């Protein structure tokens, strides 16, 4: 019969996915490290102005050129990673934890809490992402932390729904009934039996969300609602360079390429994590 062959093929596939996973994880870790140690590794001070060096085209000394104040664009792009990558990770962590906790509690306890929280999430979802973010940014003013709050408000329902759905499905399973018979209370039940079983789908959702959130965050900064100049952040660097697109295109291209490559890395990582978690690809 062909079962052993299928299993072997699946094992090869699984190994290939694992290699890919480690590769992209490695790239992502490098990006995160760069964003943490940005201040130490930049060749020039990203905020030091030197008007004599203003708008230099890319050269060996400044290989992404300089901006209108003579600041080194490469250093600014590296420091920009601190704002973009770090804020995005904080955003995704906070929303996924908050969404998972509320979703699990709603799914487990049901009744009034469930319907109230789900109606709130309906209202949050009734707005398209950016609109709500715009409104919150308008309310709280610009600034990176406000942009993060704005995106957090609109993105937690996604996790809450995944967690709630999974919890509802698990609640009726045999092992949960067995644990209940064994005398587990609600806290033990959620922490020991439900949470470990719903973390997979949550992790996949979160990984696939990083790229999108990074783009939305940069978009808010681009509109002037996120990081404020002179802070180096990819979105606001592009917004600042936009009026000089015709003559000094590197001012827009450098941060643009940086954000593209970063989003690509995290998206590839997210896709790989999804494939890795997919039971269809499991070798056992």
């Amino acid at each position, binding site marked *: 019969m062909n079962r052993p062959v299928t299993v072997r093929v699946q094992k090869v596939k699984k190994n290939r996915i694992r290699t890919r996973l480690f590769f992209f994880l490695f790239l992502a870790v490098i990006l995160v490290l760069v964003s943490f140690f940005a201040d130490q590794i930049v060749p020039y001070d990203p905020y030091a102005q030197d008007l004599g060096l203003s708008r230099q085209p890319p050269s060996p000394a400044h290989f992404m050129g300089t901006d209108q104040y003579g600041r080194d664009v490469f250093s600014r792009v590296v420091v920009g990673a601190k704002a973009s990558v770090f804020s995005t990770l904080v955003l995704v962590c906070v929303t996924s934890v908050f969404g998972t906790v509320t979703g699990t509690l709603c799914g487990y306890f049901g009744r009034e809490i469930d319907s109230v929280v789900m*109606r709130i999430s*309906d209202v949050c979802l009734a707005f398209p992402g950016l*609109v709500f973010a715009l409104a919150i940014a308008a309310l709280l003013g610009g600034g990176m932390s406000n942009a993060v709050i704005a995106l957090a408000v609109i993105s937690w329902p996604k996790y809450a729904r995944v967690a709630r759905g999974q919890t509802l499905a698990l609640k009726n399973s045999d092992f949960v009934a067995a644990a209940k018979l064994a005398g587990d209370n609600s806290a033990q039940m959620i922490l020991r039996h439900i949470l470990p079983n719903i973390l997979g789908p949550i992790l996949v959702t979160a990984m696939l969300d990083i790229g999108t959130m990074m783009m939305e965050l940069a978009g808010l900064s681009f509109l002037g609602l996120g990081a404020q100049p002179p802070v180096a952040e990819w979105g606001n660097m592009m917004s600042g360079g936009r009026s000089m697109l*015709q003559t000094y295109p590197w001012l827009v291209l450098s941060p643009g390429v940086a*954000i593209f490559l970063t989003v690509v890395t995290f998206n590839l990582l997210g896709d790989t994590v999804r494939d890795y978690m997919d039971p269809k690809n499991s070798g056992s």
Partner: protein
Amino acid sequence: MKHYAVRRLLQLIPILFAITFLSYGMMRLAGSDVVEQKMENTGGTVSQEMIDAAREELGLDKPFIVQYVTWLGKLAQGDMGVSYVSGKPVFSTFVSKLPATLLLAVVSILLTVIVSIPLGIWSAVNQNKAADYVIRTASFIGNSLPNFFVSLLLMYFFAIRLNWFPVISRDVSLQSVALPSVTLAIAMSAKYLRQVRATVLDELSKDYVLGAKARGVKFSTTMMKSVMKASLVTIITLLTLSIGSLLGGTAIVESIFMWDGVGKMAVDAINMRDYPIIQAYVMWMAVIYVLVNLVTDVSYRYLDPRIRLGGTEQ
């Protein structure tokens, strides 16, 4: 079917109330410095009496709930107040921006449909062949490009280098709609291609396709008559979702291309702290979203007999 639509409509009422309350409350909380801002804009020194007078004129001195109810009553009559900045009625300002946003929405949706459906199907039919990989890679790249970067790239190459299109849209014309709509279509097609591909693959693996093949039905006939029809539900969901966000104007793309639509109006209003306009915009978005969800749900039932029959009311 009718009962279902009516029931869904009734369910919308509390959600709409919650949204009006939220959008009003949010803007009022932030709105304390509006009068001072307005005074600063006119210049000169401002006395406390002038500020109080202006507050009274705008009704800002009354309790919050009274203000909300007054606002809601006026809203019901189509009166959304006047813009703090231009002094023109919000409603007519809003209506004047709609045609541009509608044109942009329609053109980009058409482009998206033209690109994503055939390519998605082609990619599914040639699964794991060269064409499939190329299409999937393109879709992946499109998914990873922020739309402001796409806008600026298109602007750089097609407007500045090649000079084919205007850099800034001075009017609402087909030539100036080209770049903003292509920007939006790139992002949307990248997303929908994947979905169309997945849906078609899913349909193709079903038994009836094999059955049709065994009976000698031409593949193109199966494709057109059955697979396409079954994939329609996914495609319609995607389209309605995008129509929702497109009708709200796409703040970033509209601002970059200076496209005089609703989205750019909202961004300008936020920068000027023009609260009546922001409120109107948030309301408009909420209404669109709620209606779009309704239309999607109702059309699902109409298109998909399983949902229609499974969910008949008692």
